[in-house]
């Protein structure tokens, strides 16, 4: 599924994306999926802490923060602005 190389970590501030695939081999990543980070979920990069890490995402209205290095487990398809 690495069509575009886009992951959650490459989303810019204010940009939305839809999760396409998750590298779920690590049990800890599965724990993140239990929080709702699954294929088909729409997610927005809301802001980040100093230095751009960690990143705060909006996932159906709830705030969830991920580190850059962990956001890479999630492939996304960016949604064009205004969609």
């Amino acid at each position, binding site marked *: 599924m690495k069509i575009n190389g886009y992951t959650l970590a490459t989303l810019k501030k204010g940009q939305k994306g839809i999760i396409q695939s998750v590298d779920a081999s690590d049990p800890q990543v599965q724990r993140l*999926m239990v929080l709702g980070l699954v294929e088909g979920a729409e997610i927005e990069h809301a802001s980040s802490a100093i230095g751009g890490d960690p990143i705060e995402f909006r996932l159906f209205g709830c705030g969830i923060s991920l580190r850059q290095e962990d956001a890479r487990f999630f492939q996304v398809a960016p949604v064009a602005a205004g969609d």
Partner: protein
Amino acid sequence: MVGNPNSGKSTVFNRLTGLKQRIGNYPGVTVERHIGVLSFDGKQTELVDLPGTHSLSAHSLEEQIAVDVILGRMEGSNSPDGVLAVLDATNLYQGLFLLQQLVDLNLPMVVALTMTDAAAQSGIDVDVKALSAALGDVNICTVIATTGFGLDKLRAAVSELPETTPPNRISVWPELTAAAERLRAAAGDGLAFAESERLLVDGITVHNQSFASTLNDEAITTLDELRREIFGDEPPVAAEARVRYNWARKTLKTVQQSAPKFHSWRTQVTDFLNQPVAGTVGLFIVMAVVFQAVFAWATPIMDLIDGLAATLGGKVVASLGDGALSSLISDGVIAGVGSVIIFLPQILILFLFIILLEDSGYLARAAYLMDRTMHSVGLSGQSIIPMISSFACAVPGIMATRVIPNRRDRIATILAAPFMTCSARLPVYALLIAAFVPANPVGFMNLQGLVLFGLYMFGIVMGILTALLMRKTALRGPKPPFALMLPEFRRPNLQTVLIQLLGRVKVFLYRAGTVIFTVAVIVWALAYYPRSEIIGTEVEKQRQIAAYSLSGPELAAQYQHIDNVASAAQLEQSWLGRAGKTVEPIFRPLGWDWRVSAAVIAGFPAREVVIAVLGTVYAVGDEADEGTLSGRLKASTWEDGSPVFTLPMVIGLLIFYACCLQCAATLAVIRRETNSWRWPAFAWVYMTAIGYVGALLAFQLGSA
């Protein structure tokens, strides 16, 4: 009572039960058990507030307990008659995931839909009818905990739970449902449908032994076959998340209508704090304000208590005269316990802030803002919650490390946590700062507040260095992925805040009333006995000589002087005095006299005791003319008349207290949480050594 973390579950619990609740522990573990009684229409219902969870998949001890209690598998708990599920209207997505699993329990259920007001503000309108239909026609009560809206309806629904029919099973994942029934058929009667589902998804793990152990060999074979059949190569937990969140997403479309947003203070605050720099600066300002408040607001009340204890002690001596009993009451009990009670105002203010920050959702934001820093020293953002809790007390802080899944992170956090300035260190800091640091204004703070702030920072730096050191040496290893939920800001509910505050105060007063009272009496006895006959006869002789040559006020003053000298002599040859003198050579390089040494020794079981001991030791000595403890400390001198409490010595003493692990409860909880004596022993030696060296350097360099 079940719900996601931050769903407003505890607020609803507190609103439903009020003061009719008690906090205990589940048998054999340190997870808190909150039980409350809900009264409605003359009927009493026992409510158990379970630890917040995202899923019935148990991955940690707390989740395991929540799951075991719901399934009726918890030792010492009855099977529940029903489930009160708390659903946050601002976070239906995650809530619906858990609710699907709860419906499968086939238990009577009522859903409390919270935060509909906040959801409306952010443009979400929930169709309660459609939501109820989606969840198997479950009864849903809309509740706004801050205003009390809907609480009576919820009370009625909860008290009728045992007579309520369970919600209908919902069709989310037919393959799993069919497999769960097949597994039940293979396993026999003992296995509930929900348990069967959990076994299929989670497999047999350490956290589901309560029901996994009922499986026979045949059932285990069936379980393995079924799991291969449903999941294939996909990790089952990932498959469950995918399927259930798919359903949640579809359901959201039918139950959520978007409404126009309107801007509230909440969104404005969130927007402001979401800016990286502004948010971080804001965090430091919040912390500085908290410490300044703890110091400045409490002072007038503390002075009042201090004066009151001094007057009371004087009254006792006046009415009972000199003697063992009068000394026990005034010097032992009043001086000892009073000098701890005096810190109640500060502890109240500190806990008030911690509770407010937690309930408003700011603590999670602090964890997010600090994550990069924590991560760079080998800890995770999740370590910040235990660390911040440790500012109140390291014991709950260390218990809170359970949320950290990685063992190395967890032990590094446990070793760093006791460096955070706990509420028991605060009295020692406050006493020494008030006595020896001038209150000069520095910016919007004063020097006292600044020194206190500096000591808190010192604790943080020491903790971080410790964690870094451990992660680079004994606890080397990879850093696992991690996510942190960031709840919306919300106005804390006054009643909930007060109930929590009251609980903390009770714990503090209970300790002051038992442990500290006992230690105060024991220390008094050690400082009072044995009485020396020789000193007694010497006093009589001196008094007679004085009576010959003096009269009137001069004579009274001379008597007072003789008595003080005698008390000092008695103290010096008492058990405590002898113990202090024995260890004095060890602490002499730090500039401590035998009295400070004795107090520090007595403080090893519980550091707040040191104030009580100083209070006792200095109440019977030469400096007793000074009314308050800080006055007495300032007046204490070496034999040559130079003051004991010089600035370098006080700084050294503060450093010693900032580092040293003088708390038996913390050692016990480290032992329990790491399941070995190795870590508490290491922590004690390590921290005491740092404290000693730090105090030594401060005194020697400062005095040179």
